[in-house]
């Protein structure tokens, strides 16, 4: 598993895809952070992180599209499957490699928040009253950050699963993007109301299902600065189920 993890990690930097992901992500993060906070003269990072989620819906499939699709196309999966490694080890190695790239760039993007803190500090020093809090709310930022991390981890698992289903990288990317976007946007459908303030979808069963699929609902609790255990379990199980299905895909292919 470690060998596959290392190889995958290296592959991201041998191929342009790792650089593309990190470069596009960091640029986009910096621009949107600047736009949503400093230019808007706001200390709230809610918009920034929400925009990041949508960016990830498109960027993360780029990260995961080649993980299994390419192996299948180049027939190198034959090598991995006949090597003394379990399928579980192979899937986790690949997943963790993508997760590492994602985590690394997320941590790097924290740099974007430094100017907000600096500005906040200056403003605090210039004002005489200290009744209300001036500057960014750290607990909220931590909550949002952890929430986005969990969301991304789930997206990567979904991307890995979809990549294992096809041998074409492009179709893997397109399908992953659409699946993830649907999962993100379903929240809007669930919360949509008509003119009188009545919920558009009133059937409880449908709402329940939609609610389960909607990844953004759980995230909003993190956004308030609370570490939501239910949300944590939700994202963890999303990761687990996707990776489990990926393993099953490989097992199934062996046995068919």
């Amino acid at each position, binding site marked *: 598993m*470690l*060998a*596959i993890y*290392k*190889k995958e990690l*290296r*592959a991201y930097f*041998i*191929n342009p895809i790792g650089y593309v992901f990190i470069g596009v992500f960091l640029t986009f993060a910096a621009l949107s952070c600047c736009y949503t906070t400093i230019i808007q003269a706001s200390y709230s990072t809610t918009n920034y992180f929400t925009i990041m989620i949508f960016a990830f819906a498109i960027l993360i499939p780029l990260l995961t599209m080649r993980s299994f699709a390419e192996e299948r196309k*180049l*027939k*190198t*999966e*034959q*090598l*991995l*499957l*006949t*090597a*003394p*490694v*379990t399928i579980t080890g192979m899937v986790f190695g690949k997943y963790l490699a993508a997760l590492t790239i994602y985590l690394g760039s997320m941590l790097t993007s924290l740099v974007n928040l430094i100017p907000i803190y600096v500005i906040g500090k200056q403003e605090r020093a210039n004002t005489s009253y200290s009744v209300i809090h001036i500057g960014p709310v750290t607990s909220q930022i931590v909550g949002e950050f952890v929430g986005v991390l969990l969301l991304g981890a789930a997206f990567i698992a979904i991307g890995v699963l979809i990549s294992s289903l096809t041998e074409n990288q492009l179709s893997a990317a397109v399908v992953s993007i659409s699946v993830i976007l649907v999962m993100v946007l379903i929240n809007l459908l669930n919360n949509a109301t008509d003119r009188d303030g009545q919920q558009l979808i009133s059937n409880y069963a449908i709402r329940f299902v939609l609610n389960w699929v909607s990844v953004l609902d759980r995230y909003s609790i993190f956004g308030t600065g609370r570490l939501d255990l239910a949300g944590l379990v939700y994202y963890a199980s999303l990761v687990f189920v996707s990776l489990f299905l990926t393993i099953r895909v490989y097992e199934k*292919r*062996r*046995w*068919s």
Partner: protein
Amino acid sequence: MIKIDHLVKNYGSNCAVDDISFEIQSGEIVGFLGPNGAGKSTTMNVLTGYISSTSGNISIDGIDILDDPLAVKQKIGYLPEQPPLYLDMTVREYLNFIYELKSCKLPREEHLKEICETVKIQDVSGRIIKNLSKGYRQRIGVAQALIGNPSVIIFDEPTVGLDPKQVIEIRHLIRGLGKNHTVILSTHILQEVQAVCDRIIIINKGKIVADEKTENISRVVASNRRFNAKICGPQKDVLAMLKAKQGITYCEALAEKDGDACTYLIESEPGTDIRKNLFYSLAERNWPLIGLEALGMNLEDIFISVVDQSDANEKATKYRPAKKNRARNTRSQLETSVATEMVEEAEKKRADSLSEQSPAGQSGPDADDRSWDRHDPAQESK
């Protein structure tokens, strides 16, 4: 060493490997021969754990592949049909990755260096695999299989795409490996099998149709039973004489002429050397024999005969039993007889192993029935 026991592999309703059983001893080099789609690659893929069998057992060194797949995979080095290379890695990176992947315990530097030297890729070790030629890629594939010093090495058509010199080198290498490894080689190049393998298994439509030691086959092949004779004399008379002669089973005048001499193709009965006899009787008639060339039997023809024969047998048992022994004019009888012998022997083996497995009841089920019977629910659930 390697034991394959009643292996069956179905792809849906299509039966790719139909009840194969054989054993390979340690240190043996076995050639796996068969026409396209015969089930060679499928058998190898099952053996290496890439795909699973529908039923049947495979064990290596007494370890069943389903009980402890990792331990079995550790013992196998496998070069698939298409060498599994990461094209954007350098050769060194790639080999290092394989080394780690196989969690190899041997000293890394020395081991990799040794392998690079054996397959002669040391001077490209810094280059990216994408930029290397087919021959080099094939050799990297071989190197990959050797890493970790596995006791069983499986090559699926290892010499495809190599130039003649490299082919000889690889054959040499495989022969060398046979000294302390067990090697299974799949190929459809017959000279290769003859040059390299100790034993030949011919497989057709998922069944073993022949399983012989190469030396046995070679002996048959090399036996002087067929000659090209150049004889001066009236063609008709010579031909009539030859046909009438005892010990000659077949003769034919060839188109080739040398002055007033014609060339005749002569086949003798097994076990009789007719050369001296032929010389004297020609001398008697004053027809000088100006050339006598012994022709080996063609391994290729044997192979084709074996495959044809097994096809014919299958058809015969299924549809028209009467046609089983119909005369074949297209190929000379020699190969056919050898092939028949081999096919019959293999069939006998199969029958023996079948009766061993199920002593009563299953006297003559047809192929489809059998594969259903072997459907083992215990393995399905794994």
